[in-house]
């Protein structure tokens, strides 16, 4: 029996688990996949928005600005890659200049720090690759870029160190209440809890409907992206947006925390919430639209395309509500959900307190995380860590300079990697220009060795995504 069960181990569920883990509560996080950060958290623009987009007095406005400020501190404390690069909204006409002015005023109302409107010359000075068609731009220095999955993983690992349990491969099929106790069941397992937090992302409406009348609907919105080689990484110094439209913040061009360039997304509604395929037509659209902001991106240096599904809804705000007795929805968390995550977690805790949950702080708890990132060490530090653990002296991923030591750390971390993509998300092996062509077989071998499983059992990603199908020579 748990005090709190959180459904969904995306960045919202994990941030909530992290913030709850300092209290004397028994908490469990459930997810239908085999790892944390398997939905929208792992496939998005990776931006910490400043908070000038949402309408004033919405949850989105308040929680975005709060979350943006928190991200900077949390990233430092939890060793999550983050860079405070700022963002621009580019205007290409007088009409768009008016939109930029409106965003500026909205930003001021929302409490976004230090925003200004830059002249075209000031824009070109900061961003030499930006189109000369730009007439002015909104500049928000508080915006940043982050590794979204590492953000969620860091939250989860730290919560786990404080006692929070994580149960994977648990697809919630039914939620029932008996007396004061919620019982949450998958096909073959069930857990009980006093409080339930629904952080189920694109499925948050389905989970809500297991306990209450429908009062919102998720309208999944797919976004497709290009990720480019570090050679292109300097084409933008900050996140470059175009003026927002009804469907979203539009196609951006941005550096990533790992030094690559990200371009996207488009926005298409989808009836299949799990189908995050890319399409030739929409990738063309992304390229062509981004060309308006930065025209000299060489797409021959693309290293990956991907698509993510955003939990857009029919409500023009985040849906943070008490859906039933002791059951809280953190639903419809669309953009700027990643930016707002820690503030959304605070909001959930506030609601928990208001509905009677007893929140007393533990005598001691962990709220920071350290990890070895070999390539960021000085020559002296490199020598020292190799002396301590020779595995840091063996580079496995040559593109990103990731050592065997870091991969083994990722596997034996509190919520350890079980798959090749799990290793990639935790320490970046396979994230580079060869996309695991060279290190994939080596990572597979290390996972197999460290977890003591057959290479045939090692998965690329979700259950069923086995890399190898058979041995060439079966033993007789």
């Amino acid at each position, binding site marked *: 029996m748990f005090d709190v069960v959180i459904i969904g181990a995306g960045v919202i569920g994990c941030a909530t688990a992290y913030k709850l883990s300092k209290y004397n509560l028994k908490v469990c996080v459930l997810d239908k996949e085999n790892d944390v950060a398997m939905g929208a958290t792992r496939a998005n623009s990776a931006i910490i928005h400043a908070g000038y987009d949402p309408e004033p007095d919405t949850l989105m406005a308040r929680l975005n600005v709060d979350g943006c400020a928190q991200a900077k501190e949390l990233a430092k404390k939890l060793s999550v890659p983050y860079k405070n690069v700022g963002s621009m909204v580019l205007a290409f006409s007088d009409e768009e200049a008016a939109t930029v002015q409106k965003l500026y005023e909205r930003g001021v109302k929302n409490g976004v720090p230090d925003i200004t409107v830059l002249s075209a010359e000031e824009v070109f000075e900061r961003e030499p690759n930006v189109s000369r068609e730009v007439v002015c731009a909104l500049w928000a220095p508080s915006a940043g870029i982050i590794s979204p999955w590492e953000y969620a993983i860091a939250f989860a690992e730290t919560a786990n160190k404080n006692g929070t349990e994580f149960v994977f491969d648990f697809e919630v099929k039914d939620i029932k209440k008996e007396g004061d106790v919620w019982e949450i069941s998958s096909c073959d397992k069930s857990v009980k809890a006093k409080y339930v937090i629904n952080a189920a992302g694109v499925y948050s409406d389905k989970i809500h409907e297991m306990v209450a009348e429908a009062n919102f609907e998720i309208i999944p919105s797919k976004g497709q992206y*290009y*990720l480019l080689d570090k050679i292109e990484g300097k084409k933008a110094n900050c996140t470059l947006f175009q003026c927002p439209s009804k469907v979203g913040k539009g196609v951006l061009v941005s550096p990533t925390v790992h030094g690559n360039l990200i371009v996207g997304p488009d926005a298409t509604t989808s009836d299949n919430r*799990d*189908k*995050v*395929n*890319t*399409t*030739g037509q929409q*990738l063309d659209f992304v390229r062509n639209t981004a060309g308006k902001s930065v025209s000299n991106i060489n*797409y*021959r*240096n*693309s*290293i*990956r*395309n*991907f698509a993510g599904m955003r939990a857009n809804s029919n409500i023009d705000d985040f849906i943070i509500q008490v859906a039933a007795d002791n059951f809280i929805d953190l639903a419809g968390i669309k953009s700027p959900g990643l930016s707002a995550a820690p503030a959304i977690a605070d909001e959930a805790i506030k609601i928990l307190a208001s509905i009677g949950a007893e929140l007393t702080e533990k005598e001691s708890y962990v709220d920071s995380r350290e990890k070895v990132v070999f390539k960021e060490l000085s*020559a002296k530090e*490199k*020598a020292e860590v*190799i*002396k301590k653990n*020779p*595995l*840091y*002296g*063996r*580079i496995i991923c*040559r*593109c990103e*300079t990731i050592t065997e030591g870091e991969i083994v750390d990722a596997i034996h971390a509190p919520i350890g990697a079980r798959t090749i993509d799990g290793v990639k998300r935790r320490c970046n092996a396979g994230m580079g*220009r*060869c*996309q*695991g*062509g*060279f290190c*994939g*077989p080596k990572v597979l*071998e290390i996972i197999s060795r460290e977890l003591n499983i057959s*290479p*045939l059992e090692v*998965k*690329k*990603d*979700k*259950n*069923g*995504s*086995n*890399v*190898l*199908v*058979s*041995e*060439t*020579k079966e033993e007789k």
Partner: protein
Amino acid sequence: MFDIIVLGGGPAGLSAAYSAWKAGAEKILIIERDKELGGILNQCVHNGFGLHYFKEELTGPEYAQRFIEMLKSTNVEVKLDTMVLDVSENKVVSAVNSVDGFMTLEAKAIILAMGCRERTRGAIAIPGDRPAGVYTAGSAQKYLNIDGYMVGKRVLILGSGDIGLIMARRMTLEGAKVLACVEVMPYSGGLNRNIVQCLNDFDIPLYLSHTIVDIQGKERVEKVIVAKVDESRRPINGTEMEFDCDTVLLSVGLIPENELTRGAGIEMDGRTNGAVVFENMETSLEGVFACGNVVHVHDLVDYVTAESARAGEAAAEYVKSGEKNAEIVTVKNGEGVTYTVPQKIRRTDNKFTEVFFRVNRVMADSKINVVSNGEVIATFKREHMAPGEMEKIIIPKKILDSASAEITIETKCEG
């Protein structure tokens, strides 16, 4: 202080180190990132290596072993399982391994022999789902030939590069069904002998001017959609074919791996994706040489060996007598020529200079002209040329002496 540090212990590095030793360099170190010497040759268990160099047919590991044996008679040092992190302009190499830890090593000359990597799905933006079952041909080859595992049972191959063709045969021999090889260009990117021996002999169809337009599958590849492409390589609606398969192998090109080269500030050639080199394989940074697939992608390892031998000898000569000043002739690409190596030729006492290049289309009965000041100063005839096959011309000293400071290599189709 080493005379020469060779970065990479594949065919290029082995040949360069051996030749440098023979030419009189004494303190030579090979740094290899893998646990053994030989590089990619170790996973190339098929034969066909060495026909030019050893005048016999060897497998990849046998070819590598010949050089490893030859090196045993020298004092060339080897550091295995060691990764070079950085090469500085003043020829200091930073490297790590688990035994020596972090090292900074100095050398009078450096030979870059890091080889190349495969283009990936992301590089060519193949749309669709992102399930397991999509591999570069070389990774699948490692799983199969080194580790002993099959990556799939029903295979579609995209690209007709040599590794893809070799893997079509290899997967078939191991019991997989290879459904087709699909090539976006109207001609194959691989050697003709591989088309015959790896596809035709096994009744594997080759679809030229076709490409993959969609990969489908939730966790593992389930289905691949292939369509014909028009002249600008755009898929043509209505020409789609479905293949039920669990695996896609990509053989869509190789890219020289030059992160260290760029880091050292060496001048690059955007067409080869390798360093700009002189006729002796020296780069724009004095005393730093490059050879093999890190300079340009070769068809045959024999050619890599020969080129690397020249680099090794030149590096040894540099260690002995330093840089030689000479006038420079720049080599330009003319009609039909994608790139040339070398890009620059020093006027030395060499009796002749070899220039390697590739053409941009299939050509029959053609002429190769060397042009200087708008005049053809030498002509070479070829019955057949194709982008998949590297061409070579030998320019005698006499001709080079008559040339201006810039020559252009061009092709003219007669047929």
